């Protein structure tokens, strides 16, 4: 029974990682109605940027916020330079561009920063292991950061004029233009915010999994699953979904099928849930009457 509790705690700790990245995915979805497959790679690049600054002696929190700002600019620039030219192309072409972006960012990161495993510092140091050593102070701290980001995102989207405009631009760009919203800038802003949130996620994940260019490769799939499980249009759903995937995966691996099929079974369960509830556990079903 002790084992079960430990598996759940470990799952929650890993789930925190998924939750952070799920949130970034939902964020860009809210703002652009796209899911950016290069999100993980971009977050890794951001984390490397932060790592370089910290290595150069810049204090953690300065590097943290500077990285968020840089990532925001990179995200917005990517939208302007890469997405803008194909905005009228079919959706599948957009996916093609995402794949190109994934290749470029993923390969360039290793080329620039090297491939060795690196230690990324945490601002939440503690000598005492918590919960039998399964959870570190960092994991608690990063969960708190995730929740803080979630609240900020929620407030931004629900209660600011800009947040509302961004949602409107994503849902219905044509109508958004008619009320005077500069849709192009909203998309760039959305990409910027998503990249910034991705950077936060990357910097929170890296101390746990260690930093290398492939750090996000697997995480992105789990995060994607978490986001869809929770409901792609619901930031809090995504966070819950991320935690759920972490726990589910551990329990499947430890008690159901063994570790070799852990991912397979977890994904099968998620797809099963989605078949029953196609817009996710907490997703909003858009009703419309004609």
């Amino acid at each position, binding site marked *: 029974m002790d084992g079960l509790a*430990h598996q759940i705690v470990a799952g929650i700790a890993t789930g925190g990682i998924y939750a952070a990245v799920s949130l970034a995915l939902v964020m860009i979805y809210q703002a652009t109605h796209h899911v950016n497959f290069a999100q993980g790679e971009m977050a890794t690049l951001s984390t490397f940027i932060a790592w370089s600054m910290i290595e150069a002696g810049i204090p953690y929190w300065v590097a943290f916020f500077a990285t968020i700002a840089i990532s925001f600019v990179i995200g917005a620039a990517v939208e302007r330079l890469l997405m803008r030219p194909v905005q009228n192309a079919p959706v599948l072409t957009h996916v093609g561009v995402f794949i190109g972006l994934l290749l470029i960012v993923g390969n360039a990161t290793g080329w620039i920063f090297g491939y060795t495993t690196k230690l990324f510092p945490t601002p939440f140091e503690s000598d005492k292991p918590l919960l039998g050593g399964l959870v570190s102070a960092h994991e608690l701290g990063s969960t708190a950061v995730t929740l803080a980001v979630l609240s900020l995102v929620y407030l931004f989207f629900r209660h600011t004029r800009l947040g509302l405009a961004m949602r409107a631009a994503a849902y219905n760009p044509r109508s958004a233009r008619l009320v005077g919203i500069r849709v192009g800038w909203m998309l760039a802003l959305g990409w910027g915010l998503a990249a910034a949130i991705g950077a936060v996620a990357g910097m929170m994940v890296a101390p746990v*999994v260690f930093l290398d260019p492939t750090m996000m490769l697997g995480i992105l799939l*789990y995060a994607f699953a978490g986001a869809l499980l929770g409901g792609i249009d619901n930031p809090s759903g995504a966070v819950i979904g991320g935690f759920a995937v972490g726990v589910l995966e551990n329990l499947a691996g430890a008690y159901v099928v063994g570790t070799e099929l852990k*991912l397979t079974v977890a994904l099968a369960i998620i797809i099963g849930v989605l078949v029953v509830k196609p817009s996710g556990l907490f997703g909003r079903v858009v009703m419309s009457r004609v």
Partner: protein
Amino acid sequence: MRLNRRALLLGTAGSLALPQLAPAQEAPGVTATEIRIGSTNALSGPASAYSVITKGLAAMFRRVNDQGGIAGRQINFIAYDDGYQPPRTLEQTRRLVEQDRVAFLFNQLGTPTNSAIHRYVNQRKIPHLFLATGADKWANPREYPWTIGWQPSYRTEAQIYAKYLLEQKPNTKLGLLYQNDDFGKDYVNGVRDVLGPRFDAMVKLASHEATDPTIDSQIVSLQAAGCDALICGIIPRFAAQAIRRVFDIGWKPMMFMTNVSVSVGTVMQPAGLEKGVGLLTSDYRKDQSDPAWADDPGMKEWRDFMRRYVPDGELGDNNYTYAYGVGSTMLQVLKQCGNDFSRENVMRQATNIAPMDIATLLPGVKVQSQPRNYNVIRQMQLQRWNGRAWERFGGVIEGANV
């Protein structure tokens, strides 16, 4: 039977497709001024961490060329990207052999990738030298005489751990944490070799995928199963995670780590130097970030090379010391060839290396080969982490005799 018939057919096909070009050539891929050597590596994609090996090798050949080349010939080292995908390896290898007409193939990366060309190169009798993989199937001179590995096999390494463990704790309950691929499974096979029928009773297995973010769940399972020893066949990022997590949960198994993942700079420091105290491994290389080798002449030679030929290289990346070791072996073979760089002679020399020291290998660990024994490096030494450096203990172990 089938294979023989096919080999025959391919032989004729080969002569049809490759008319004897340029009679001035003394051997394929060799001219009076040049020796062409081919290789493949993952220069793109998730496995491209290993691309630095190719970078290091290219720099070594550049140094040789600067020094006048081999027997008056410049080395033309052609390396192609296979993205670690076996079909691409076959494509690129065929390009090297049939289009670039290289003399031989050297240090291609990966087990599944080399498997895809294993038969092709042996049918065509192309030397397939010193592969960048620790699978043990490359040392099979009877069936595949043209293929030879280099580093000690993972399976042998696992056998060493299992033997040592049985000496220390005869009634152990062993946890085996491995990556679910050919690399990780070799550790399972090695332990199974030693334990035999007792394997199922004594061992609890936990695998992980290369794409898993963490391995916490696996470690929790192994601890809960009551294991008092742990052998890990995992890559550096997960190794650092495992060392830290095992320490944090207060589990104190006798822990063995694959020598793929014991670099001071990229594993032990990230994990936390004090968290790995007592960790065991069995290595054949000097670790460049280990202060013990700060004044070692061999490592000085390597650092000098890096400074001059790979100035932008990451000194903490032990793929560079690997490249230096395997590159030195290759150069030794070329020197032994004298003036005869025919494929037959290259293979003959590659399989007749008298025991020799290599700058980046541990003292006492030799590079050698005999026509009947293709295990080029067969010695390792157990080491224990003391919180600052790896302490070697016991003698050099001849792995192939285990």
